[in-house]
C-alpha cells in the first residue's frame, strides 16, 4: 500500500479500564452462580451433580482398568483356574437391585413431603446395602471353606479383588446413605432431596457396576 494513502481505522477507546458491569450484588452468598450468572442466597447444587458424575466416571475407569487386566491376564497366562460363582451371589445381586428400588421409592416419598415413609424406606435401603455386604462376606467364607483363597490362582485373585473393591465402594455408599439420614439439612449447603438424589446416582451406579462385574466373572470364568 502506498505510503500516502489515507487509511481509515476504528480506534478503540476504553472509557473505564478500571472495571465495568454492574455493581457488586449485596450479600451475594458464598457461591458463584455458574455460567448463567445466577446469584442468590441458596447456592446452586449443580456442582454436586457434576462432581458425582465425574467421580462415577473416575470409578468406572478404575474398574475398567481392572476388567482389562482381567481379560489380558486370563488370555495370556497358563495358571488360570476358573472360580465357580457361589450361589449366594445371585441372592446378593437381587438384594442390591431391590435396594435401588427402595431408594427410588424413598425419594418419591421425600418429594411428596412424606418424611416418615422416606425415613423408613431410606433405612430399608441402608439395611439392604449392609445385607448385600454381609452376603459378599458369606460368599468369601464359602470359597474359603472350599480351599479357594485370594492367592490360589489369578482367577480367584480377581474374584476377591473385584468383590472386595466393589464392597469398599459400596461401603462408601452406605456411609452416604447414613449421612443423608442423620444430617441436619437446615444448616447444609444443599437440601435433603438434592443430597438424596446425588447419593441415589452413586447407589444406582454401584448397582450397575456390580451387575457388570458379576457378568464379567461369570462369563469370563
Amino acid at each position, binding site marked *: 500500500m502506498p*505510503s*500516502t494513502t*489515507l*487509511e*481509515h*481505522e*476504528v*480506534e*478503540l*477507546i*476504553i*472509557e*473505564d*479500564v*478500571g*472495571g*465495568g*458491569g*454492574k455493581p*457488586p*450484588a449485596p450479600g*451475594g452468598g*458464598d*457461591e*458463584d*452462580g*455458574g*455460567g448463567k*450468572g445466577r*446469584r442468590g442466597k441458596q447456592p*446452586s447444587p*449443580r*456442582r454436586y451433580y*457434576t*462432581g458425582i458424575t*465425574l*467421580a462415577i*466416571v*473416575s*470409578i*468406572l*475407569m*478404575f*474398574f475398567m*482398568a*481392572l476388567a*482389562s*487386566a482381567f481379560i*489380558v*491376564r486370563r488370555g*495370556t*497366562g*497358563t*495358571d488360570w483356574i476358573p472360580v465357580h460363582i457361589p450361589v449366594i451371589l445371585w441372592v446378593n445381586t437381587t438384594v442390591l437391585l431391590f435396594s435401588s428400588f427402595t431408594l427410588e421409592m424413598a425419594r418419591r416419598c421425600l418429594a411428596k413431603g412424606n418424611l416418615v415413609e422416606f425415613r423408613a424406606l431410606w433405612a430399608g435401603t441402608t439395611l439392604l446395602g449392609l445385607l448385600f455386604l454381609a452376603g459378599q462376606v458369606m460368599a468369601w467364607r464359602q470359597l474359603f471353606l472350599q480351599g479357594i483363597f*485370594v*492367592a490360589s*490362582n*489369578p482367577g480367584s*485373585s480377581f474374584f476377591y*479383588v473385584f468383590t472386595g473393591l466393589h464392597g469398599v465402594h459400596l461401603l462408601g455408599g452406605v456411609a452416604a446413605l447414613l449421612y443423608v439420614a442423620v444430617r441436619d439439612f437446615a444448616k447444609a449447603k444443599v437440601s435433603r432431596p438434592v443430597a438424596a438424589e446425588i447419593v441415589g446416582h452413586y447407589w444406582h451406579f454401584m448397582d450397575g457396576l456390580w451387575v457388570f462385574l458379576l457378568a464379567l466373572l461369570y462369563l469370563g470364568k
Partner: protein
Amino acid sequence: MLRAGLGVFGGLVDGEMGIHDESYGMESQEPGLEFSPNGELSHAAGCRRGFLRRFLFSTDHKTIGLQYLWLALLCVFFGMAMSLLMRVNLMWPEAGANFLRGFSKTPEHYAALTLLHGSLMVFFVLTAAPQAGLGNYLLPLQIGARETAFPHLNLLAVWLTAASAAGITASFFLAPERGVQLWVVGVAVFCLAALLVAINFSVTAIDLRGAGMALPRLPLTVWAWFINALLSVLIFSILLAACALLLSDMWIGTRFFHTAFIDRGALGASGVAVVTWQRLFWFFAQAEVYVAMLPCFGIVTHLLATFARRPVWKERAVVLALCGVGAFGFCIWGGHMFATGMNPGMPMLFGVLALSLGVPASVLLLSWFATLWNGRLLWNTSALFVLGFISLFLSGCFSGLFLAREDIALLANGGDFVSGHFHLVMGVSATFAVLAALFFWFPKLFGRWLNEPLGKVHFWLTFVGVFCVFMPMHWMGLMGRARPGMDAAAARHGGVGTFITLAALVTVAAQGIFLFNLLETLWRGELVLECNPWRATTLEWTDRAVDGLRAFRGAYEFDESGSIDDFIPQYVAPDRVAYRQVSRSG
C-alpha cells in the same frame, strides 16, 4: 520479616505490596471475615485465623496453588541433583562410588536413583506445577469464581500430594523390597490426590464460571486446565487400579503381574504376566505426557497473545486442537507395546493414531507462528521462555515422528533416543512453560518483578544447555547404545558422554541463578505498582471484587496499535467502549 516470609508461602502479601492487597483481600473472602470499606482484610480478622488455618490448612485456592508451586520447586532441585549424580556416576564410576558410598555399588540403588528422579520430576514437577499449582491459583480467578468447587477436597489433595512426595522420597532410603512397596503406596496416594484435583477443576470450570463467562469467552489457559482435568480423571484412575493390583501382588500374594517386580529371582518366569502390567502402565504413562503438556500449551498460547498484543490466531481451532491432544493422547498408549508383541494389525493402528497427533500439534504451532507473524513481541524473559518452549516442542515433534514408526521405535525403544526425546519434549519444554508463567504471573503471585537481566542470563544458559544435553542423546540412541547402565566404558563413547555430563553440570548450575533471582526478589525485589502491569485482558488482573465481575467479551481483544489502551479487558462492558473514526497516514 517473619510475616513477610510466611506470606510468601501462604500467598498473602505483606502490607507494603500496595494495590494488590485489595485484590488479595477481596478474592479470598470467606464468610465471617471482616473487610474494611476499601476491601482490605482487617488485621484483627486476619490474626484470628491463626497460623495453621492461614498457611497450612487454608482452603483458599491461591494458598494451595502456591503450596503446590513450592513443592514443585523443592522437587525440581532434588530431581536435578539426582540427575547429576547419575551422570557423574555414569562417567566416573570410581568417583561416584566414593562420593555415594554404598548407594552406587548396587544396581538396586542406581535403579532407585533413576526411579526417584523420574517420579519426583514427573509427578511433583511436571504434573503438579502447571496443573495443580498454576491452575489452582489462576483458574478460579480467570473464570470469575471466588473459590474452587470443593475447597476442602482441594486442601485434602495438597496434603495427600505432600505425603506422597515424602513417601516416595523416603522409599529411596529403605531396603529395595520395602522401598518399592512404599513407592507404590506413594504413587497410589498421588493418584488419589490428582483425581481430587481433576474433579475439582472440572466442576469449577463447568459450574462456577462467573457471570457472562460463556465457553467461547474462556481464556485458553482455562480450556487447557479443564481438558487436562478431564483427561486426568480418566488416566489416574487407571494408574490407581494398576497400583492396587501391584500392592495386592506384594501384600496378599496374588499373581496379577507375578512377583517379578519385587523378586528378581522370578523375573524370567513371569514374562507373560508382565504384559498385563505394561498395558495398564502405558495406558497411563503415554497420556501422562499430555497431562504435563496440555496446561503448557494453554499457557504458551495465552502468553504469546499478550506479548504480541494480538488476538490468538484461530482461537477456536486452538481449543479444538487442545481437545484433540487430549483425545489422541489417550488413545496412543499401544505405541509403547511394539517391542512386547501384539496383534499384527495393532502397531499399524497405533502408529496412525500417534501420527494423527501431529494434526492438533500442527494447529497449535501454526497458531503460535501466525500470532507471532509480523507482530511486535514484547521481549522479556517470559517471552523468551515461551519461544524456548516452542523451539523445544518442535524438536520433540520431529523426534516423535521417528518414534511413531513401528520399525524405528523397535530399534530405539528403551534407548537414549527415547530418553533424549521425552526429556526435551516433556520435561524441559514443560519446565520452560512453567518458568514463562512464573515470570509472567509473578506480579500477581507476589506483587514483585523477577529480575529481568538475571532471568535472561538464566534463560540463555538453560536453553543452550538443554540442547547440548539432550540432542547428543538422540544421536547416541540412533547409534544403538542401550539405556545407560553401570557400564561406564560404553558411556564414554566418543567423548559424547563427557560432553553431555559437562553440559548437564553447567545447565544445573545455571538453575542456581533462577533460585537466587527468586529468593532475592521475594526479599527485596522491585514492587509492582500497577494492578495490571502486562495490560492483559483476563479477569485475574483486575483489582475489582470477584462478585462484581462480569465477562462481556473474549479473552484476547488486543488491537496491535501499541498504545497504552490497545486492549479491552474481559470485564469491560460494551457501553463502556466508545468507537471513533480516526484517520492517519498509512
